[in-house]
């Protein structure tokens, strides 16, 4: 009795209808928090001093690093959701990784574009095929492949299962991206914030960077919750249309 009660409570919490009610309640707050964090982050980004070597181009870091961090975090969120799809066969997990893929692709695109725009004045080149840049480019292609694969199948639960397997196989790329700067000799610099022994970056740049990273993360979760809500609605529309067609067929 207690067991079944606990299970029903758990399923109730992960129920799509319950999710929609929760999303409606928290989305305005999340959006407001995102706007406020961006306002503070951008203010700090444009009022801090330039680097003694890089000059003002250090400001590119405040969008490049958070976007790059999100490109990896989004894939991790997708991998956790993929486990939810394969182990618990939960429809909300299917919706989660499907909704996250375009967001991940967009943030990876920002990381690649801003990195290139930073590389040109600092390295003297837009692009090199070093381990970090190449592995992030592969991540971008994987996002595009996953978007295409998930939308190529009509049956959403089958699409989710196939995508989930590919997401988990592709997860091997995430540690490769993170440690590429240590394992290989790259033009890209090694980690200076999340590293053993603490950040080596100056306080002057650390604060705007942290606030922009929190702002980007909040933006991601706001967009992800919205996209999940949209996907649930899309599935409901499809289900209701099928039901209407069946009813019309029975009447005819």
């Amino acid at each position, binding site marked *: 009795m207690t067991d079944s009660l606990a299970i029903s409570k758990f399923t109730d919490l992960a129920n799509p209808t319950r999710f929609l009610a929760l999303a409606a309640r928290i989305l305005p707050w999340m959006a407001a928090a995102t706007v406020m964090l961006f306002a503070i982050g951008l203010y700090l980004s444009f009022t801090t001093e330039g680097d003694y070597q890089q000059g003002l181009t250090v400001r*590119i870091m405040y969008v490049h690093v958070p976007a790059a961090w999100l490109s990896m975090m989004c894939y991790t969120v997708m991998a956790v959701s993929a486990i939810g799809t394969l182990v618990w066969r939960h429809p909300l997990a299917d919706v989660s990784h499907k909704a996250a893929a375009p967001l991940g692709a967009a943030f990876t695109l920002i990381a690649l574009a*801003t990195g290139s725009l930073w590389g040109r004045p600092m390295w003297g080149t837009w692009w090199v095929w070093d381990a970090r840049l190449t592995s992030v480019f592969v991540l971008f292609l994987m996002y595009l492949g996953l978007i295409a694969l998930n939308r190529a199948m009509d049956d959403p639960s089958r699409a989710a299962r196939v995508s989930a397997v590919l997401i988990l196989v592709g997860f091997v790329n995430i540690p490769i991206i993170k440690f590429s700067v240590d394992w290989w000799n790259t033009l890209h610099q090694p980690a200076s914030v999340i590293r053993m022994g603490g950040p080596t970056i100056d306080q002057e740049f650390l604060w705007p960077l942290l606030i922009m990273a929190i702002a980007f993360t909040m933006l991601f979760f706001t*967009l992800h919750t919205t996209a999940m809500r949209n996907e649930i609605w899309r599935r409901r529309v499809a289900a209701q249309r099928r039901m209407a067609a069946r009813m019309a067929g029975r009447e005819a």
Partner: protein
Amino acid sequence: MSHTFYIAMSYAVSAIVILCLVAWTWLDGRARRQELAELEASGVRRRSAQAKDDAA
């Protein structure tokens, strides 16, 4: 080209991509909500909603 050009371009690219994402999620949500409202208006309801109505 000056450093300002690269900084401005970086922020512009990020802003454009983020605004596209926001517009996409917002417009997609609006379109789906409209479709659900149209279905509701034409008398098609979710099975769970029908069951509740029958019980009442």
